């Protein structure tokens, strides 16, 4: 069985929407950083996007079945890397997240995300769609939970949380029953309350960040300040926005990190409700396109991989935009394809590459 591959089957429509988002992102990064010490980050972002595109094409060429074969090994390497981070990691901004190899630093936790998507897809595909036993569920939890705890220890709450949707999507699509789901939810709720009140798992600043969105005035100089400024930025944009490079909140440095975590606030301020809804529509279209690809995938693992990617992207969009508009706590989760940052861009393009990979092989049987 020889597989016929053609870039005619490459999802050019999806790529166009993705690139459109990237263009908006570069312009907004330029606007948000032009008078700050971060000026010039838009060119860096262009490099990351270019690199991401190359990686995407490379990953789309490798058969995803081969990737699934490598997944357990990769998973092992990931765990080792996380242990290495804990042992010899490079500490910055109070967190040990990076490993330094020569001049390069890299953050294993971003790569873990992709590997988790693959390993979870492989795991549930192997179960073949039969109803799950508690043992299956427990194994899945362990698979995702071990790296989660290690990343949480770094500490990196944002990345830790992005592992969750991978597991949730896997369980949901892998055939969890309603009863099991309810039991899990209840246990989860109890656990969350337990972790919260134990005071050991979460650092105080993390707790403060998680609660200040409910009432920003409780902590007006800390994260409450960030949320407040973000709300002012978004709200003052109005329907049409203040115009590119004219956002007073963005340009006056009131909006925190306007080129990364709060780029959607900067964009909404300068381009208004119209611009913000346009971006949301683009995301919606991209997600729908991915789900369609999952539907047309040749086999169960392909579908599960794409749905894992959809879950992660959806989660990131919901949490980031939700944070910007005051629905969600400040967790440091970047907005995929918009926020500045090499790891985030690379991960997103790699994940899209894998999704392309699945789509290109949809007729192969």
């Amino acid at each position, binding site marked *: 069985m020889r597989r016929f591959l053609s870039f005619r089957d490459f999802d050019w429509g999806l790529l166009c929407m993705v690139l459109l988002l990237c263009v908006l992102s570069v312009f907004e990064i330029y606007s948000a950083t032009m008078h700050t010490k971060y000026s010039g980050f838009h060119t860096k972002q262009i490099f990351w996007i270019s690199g991401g595109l190359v990686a995407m094409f490379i990953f789309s060429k490798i*058969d995803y*079945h*081969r990737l*699934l*074969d490598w997944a357990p090994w990769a998973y092992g390497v990931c765990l080792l890397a996380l242990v290495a981070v804990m042992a010899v990691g490079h500490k910055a901004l109070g967190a040990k997240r990076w490993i330094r190899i020569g001049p390069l630093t890299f953050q294993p936790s971003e790569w873990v995300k992709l590997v988790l998507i693959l390993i979870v897809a*492989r795991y549930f*595909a192997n179960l*073949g*769609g039969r109803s799950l036993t508690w043992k299956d569920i427990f194994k899945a939890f362990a698979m995702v939970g071990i790296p989660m705890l290690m990343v949480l220890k770094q500490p990196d709450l944002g990345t830790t949380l992005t592992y969750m949707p991978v597991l949730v999507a896997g369980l*949901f*699509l892998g055939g969890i029953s309603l009863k099991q789901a309810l039991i899990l939810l209840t246990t989860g709720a109890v656990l969350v309350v337990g972790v919260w009140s134990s005071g050991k798992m979460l650092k105080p600043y993390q707790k403060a960040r998680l609660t200040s969105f409910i009432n920003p*005035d409780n902590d*007006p*100089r800390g994260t409450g*300040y960030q949320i*407040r*400024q973000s*709300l*002012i*930025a*978004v*709200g*003052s*944009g*109005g*329907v049409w926005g203040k115009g590119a490079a004219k956002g*007073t*909140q963005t340009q*006056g*440095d*009131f909006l925190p990190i306007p080129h990364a975590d709060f780029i959607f606030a900067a964009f*909404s301020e300068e381009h*208004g*409700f119209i611009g*913000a*809804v346009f971006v*949301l529509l683009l*995301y*919606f279209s991209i997600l*729908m396109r991915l*789900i369609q690809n*999952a*539907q047309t995938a*040749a*086999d*169960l*693992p392909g*579908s*599960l991989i794409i*749905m894992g990617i*959809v879950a992660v992207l*959806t989660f990131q*969009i*919901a949490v980031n*935009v*939700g944070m910007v*508009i*005051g*629905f969600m706590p400040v967790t440091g989760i970047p907005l995929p394809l918009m926020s500045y940052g090499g790891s985030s861009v690379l991960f997103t393009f790699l994940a899209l590459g894998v999704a392309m990979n699945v789509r290109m092989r949809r007729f192969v*049987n």
Partner: protein
Amino acid sequence: MYSDRVNRGEKLSNVKLTSVQYGILIMMLALGAGLWRLQVLGADNFRMLAEQNRIRKVPVLAARGKLFDRDGRLLVDNYPSVSCFLVREQGHSVDADLPLIARGLNLDLEQLRATLRHYRAAPGYQPIPIKQDITADEQAFIEAHRNELPELETIDEERRLYPRDGFAAHLIGYVGEVSEEDLNQSRYAAYEPGDVVGKAGVEETYDELLRGQDGSRDVIVDSHGREVGYLRTQHAIPGQDLKLTIDIDLQRVAELALGDANGAVVAMDPRNGEILAMVSHPSYDPNAFAVRINRTDWNQLITNPNHPLMNKAIQDQLAPGSTFKIIMSAAGLQEGVAQDMRVNCAGGGTFYGRFFHCDRHHGVLSIQQAIPLSCDTFFYALAQRLGIDTIARYATGFGLGSKTGIDLPNEMAGIMPSTQWEMKNYHQRYYPGNTISVGIGQGETQVTPLQLARALSGIASNGHLVRPHVVEPAQLPAQFRTAVLDSFPGSGDKSVPLDPGTWMTITDGMAAATTTGTAAAAHLEGIDFAGKTGTAQVVGGGDTHVKGGARTPNSWFVGMVPRRNPELVVAVLQEHGDWGSNSARIAAQVVATYVDKQRKRDHNLMEQATVNKPVEVGAVWSEPRPAGHHAGKRDEASDDGALHAGHFMLDPDKTLGRVLSAASPKALGSGQLPLPAWFTHALPLRFRERLP
């Protein structure tokens, strides 16, 4: 390969994928709804918050108007100074920064906290003044801590610079931060906490004109409080400069002449009420108030028994002593009683069964002798003849017992007793025996130096009393002028009709006082100086005539030049200054300076010509002849009979050119003054007699 091992038949159920799609749709709709809520429904509110974020209102303080003396010499100036304000940003608590701020600005931490508490209720955008007139070091501290202490803001402003050593301090007054009590009054409705207002003297009365109008600047700041630009500036309108009627030369002489004595000197032009000098001792340094006065200095000022903050020229109410005899004389002469009165002074006299002393045996006196000698017995008798109510009628007519209406705050009205006054205040009938004391300016009568100056010079001006003022009214806006006049009700300009005989007798009597009478020591050769001394007993009796002692009499003198229609009146009060003649010498110095200055000025017509206002000139002329006589030759009779001398006010613009040509050396050399008819018709704007 992995694919070979999996069950290819398995697929994800479409139901689940569709439900995922709907889930994403719902999420997107929720996010869209959130955006709608913020950007469409809440846009106006958030736009306002965004503006508040980035725009900071910085006041641009108006320079206060300067004060000049009557000759345009600078009296009160401003100097540039830097003040530090604390700007409360939204939600930014500055409490933690306070120790650092207090250290850097050399402030007391507790006092700083108290200042902040004081402004707690003020709106958030309003900057709190925390230190004024900061030093270069403190300014450097603020600059160096821009990032740590973005709430500190400096403002350049103009600060008051007053003359040193309390020169004219009471007249000028001082400025200070508006107090909380003031802010509650309607008069201060337009003021905000931290505003500088005049607290005394001219500064207080004319505050509205002097303060100008503060502007403001909308500064765009970034989140660190750094200024990145500004939107618009509303320029400050500087306060109006005011020209006072004070003559620095006279003021200086008056200050020096009074020396360290505890008292007051006031010099006024009785023709128009312009105050030329006003001194009150002891004085204070108004510069101490220009920044914030410290507590110990303040306590010293208010507990000093000599009342340095009191403007004694208008606020010190004391018995007038013998100076009151001028008013007595006016009353006596007007009533027709005093003209033919002869009183034998045997060291006093018995009235109402009690012996009243005089300080000497004067013998038989007429009023012409009684005034210069200041014989008490004569005036006891006159008082008895007139009765208290007649005396009170004349005294109040000359402005005693009511404010003069000078344009300075907190003037005192003094007291002029009468039967009505006695009934009103003590609910009893007036005891006629008291009238005898009132006759020599003792008893319950209380006057201020300014009142006395105005009353006595009014009598010397043939009953014409003026309302005193220290700021030339011509420069004031009409609306403000009426407002000031309304807010200082006094007896105003008025005329009390006097018989020519009364006028002549009293003025001659006062002139005699400075030549042969009680003030002979203050005689000024060649100057028509008239006046009246007063030695007012301090109630309680005891040791008298120990200068400076607590019961030493207060020494008064009111002098004027010339004796009739005076140009200048000087009232001097020395508390516990012993004999009135001590004060007469002080007045004489002021008068001599004035006359000296006027004489130099009068003779410089060319200098006067540059001043665009009416000039006073002296002239000698003969009456214009009737038309028929015009061609006839001159005869001696017409020469003696028609020669007149006088002073005129002329307007240099309109007539001076012609006058100068008329008084050309050639014309003077010929021994005639060719004065055509237009001269006499056009010129005598104001005729005044002046004795040689």
